[in-house]
């Protein structure tokens, strides 16, 4: 990222609480996955992960009633501190990635940056292998191809193809088949 883009990103984090909260959630999930928050209290970690995944606040076991005002102000202050820390870390990471990790001029780098900018919906799915994400023709067409191909394949392989057809093809196949028929 260029210096202007970094400045814009920081300004956006300052003025967009939703974006800031999203960054905090991602940071917590990353920390949980790396086992960085396993101490001192695992219940705190569990509650934070639940909050992050559901996006809503989970009632705490201990009530805050009776706390002093200074203690009540402590939590928002800590949250803001965490958000600021995460924002700085994210900016530094992105800058490093743009300058060293990837050649910004390559298509891969451009696609990665575009994808980062287009990630409007929060996703907690661990990315799969790139090769598996490549796509091909619609499932119905593949099934038709497979049926036709199996007729000309090795006899042992035909049983395998048939097993693929009746056992593996996901529901998209049938859905697409129905869609085509309609």
């Amino acid at each position, binding site marked *: 990222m260029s210096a202007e883009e970094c400045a814009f990103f920081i300004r956006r984090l300052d003025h967009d609480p939703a974006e800031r909260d999203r960054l905090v959630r991602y940071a917590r999930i990353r920390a949980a996955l790396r086992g960085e928050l396993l101490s001192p209290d695992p219940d705190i970690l569990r509650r934070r992960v639940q909050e992050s995944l559901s996006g809503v606040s989970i009632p705490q076991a201990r009530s805050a009633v009776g706390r002093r005002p200074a203690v009540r102000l402590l939590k928002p202050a800590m949250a803001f501190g965490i958000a600021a820390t995460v924002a700085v870390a994210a900016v530094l990471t992105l800058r490093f990635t743009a300058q060293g990790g990837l050649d910004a001029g390559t298509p891969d780098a451009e696609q990665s940056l575009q994808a980062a900018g287009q990630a409007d919906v929060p996703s907690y799915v661990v990315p799969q292998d790139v*090769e*598996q994400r*490549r*796509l*091909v*023709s*619609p*499932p*119905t*067409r*593949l*099934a*038709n*191809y*497979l*049926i*036709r*191909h199996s*007729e*000309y*394949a*090795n*006899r*042992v*392989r035909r*049983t*395998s*193809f*048939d*097993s*693929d*057809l*009746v*056992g*593996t*093809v996901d*529901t998209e*196949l*049938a*859905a*697409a*088949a*129905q869609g*085509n*028929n*309609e």
Partner: protein
Amino acid sequence: MKAGRHRCMWAFALLVAFISMEAVAQDVRSWLERMTGAMEELNYEGTFVHLHSGNAETLDITHRNENGLVSERIVSNDGVGREIIRHAEQIRCILPDRGVILVDEARDASPLVAALPSYSETLEPHYEFAFDATDRVAERPTQVIRISPRDEFRYGYRLWLDEETAMPLKSQLMDENGEIIEQILFTRFEIFESIPADRIESQIDTSGFSLLATERSISVPDDGVLWQASMLPGGFALSVAKHGPLAGSEHPVEHHVYSDGLAAVSVFIEDPRAVDDGAEGFTRLGSTNAFSTTVSGRKVTAIGEVPYKTLHQIAISLNAE
């Protein structure tokens, strides 16, 4: 004198080794020919487990041979119980979860149109055949046969063949690194003198199902375009070339099959209007790989039980003349 005797002994040893290797290869090929015959000619029922990509599925198979007319039914015991039924002239794939039946024509049996892979000596430059130890599968003694590829353009196999019938009771498909990518394992296998015809019929009430069948009414004009693959991997050759309709497609499809005698790759060349979207690239359907691209304005999809690089090489080498 002594040196001459040594040379004779070496030559004799080499000759014996060559003859024994050739005998093993011939013996393995004989087993494989028996296997192909058994899979077509026997009447049998069984249950097998299909393992691939971390998934395990249980399926029932019923195979019937009545006076040379072969029919077969495979039913998935998992999920909603999809079925595929093969008759002499038709293949039906029933998807009860969506109320759809895919129907396609069976292979044209004419030797002028179709050539199935066979186990001939032409495989030798590309595969190594060997016997492994004996084993037991589904309570039956088996002979294990290993077929190893000699290059990275094809997969390897291990087959557990029933000693009595040569029926494959277990099989493994291995990638170019020797990793197992698929297994089929029979847990029940029974041979019968005959099997009633109704055992092949579907037990699913298909009334109201949508039929997605090959449109015979489609006119198939000969566009005069000759498609050829200019850069086939070693051993692969064109074995089938057809031009006609395909189930669910409004446009005729060019279908080529390239085989090395054991593995087969189908290439489908279609009018891009017949394809729903512009998606291209690699994908996998169970243990089968597929690659889609555009060549000379036509949608080309290669599919087969071979590594991606083989599909890619065949697809991109296609030329229209």
